[in-house]
């Protein structure tokens, strides 16, 4: 179960990177991020984390609303 939680957070990390990269990086004329892309990635990542925490809170509440034996 611990093991699942670690691999869960690693998967989340990969999903976050994929999502924010896809949303923020549109041109491939240079090989380094420009200022605008970097800002976009940082905001996207912060939003993703906050979003993820909020979902997890709501999700936990709903899980408690209909408790399961184990």
């Amino acid at each position: 179960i611990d093991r699942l939680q670690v691999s869960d957070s690693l998967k989340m990390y990969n999903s976050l990177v994929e999502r924010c990269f896809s949303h923020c990086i549109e041109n491939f004329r240079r090989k380094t991020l420009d200022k605008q892309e970097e800002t976009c990635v940082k905001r996207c990542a912060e939003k993703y984390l906050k979003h993820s925490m909020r979902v997890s809170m709501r999700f936990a509440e709903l899980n408690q609303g209909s408790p399961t034996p184990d």
Partner: protein
Amino acid sequence: MSGGLRTADGLPVEKEQIFRMAQQEMEYRVDLFNKLTQTCFEKCIERKYKESELNVGENSCIDRCVAKYWQVTGIVGTMLGSSKPGGM
């Protein structure tokens, strides 16, 4: 290493089955949570990323998105003959 039927891993059969089921339930919930998180991110978060805080509209969209996703899970679960929403 006393008597009783054991599997290749050396666990007694029953214990192992319970462990496997718990693990599958867990994997199922993790997968559900990941899909829910990504779906609601696509539905609720504005793509302009003008700031790094979630705004009021995004926050209430997330709450409703999770609530509706949960209800859909329940409807599908009932159709498939399961009783509790979100459960197996």
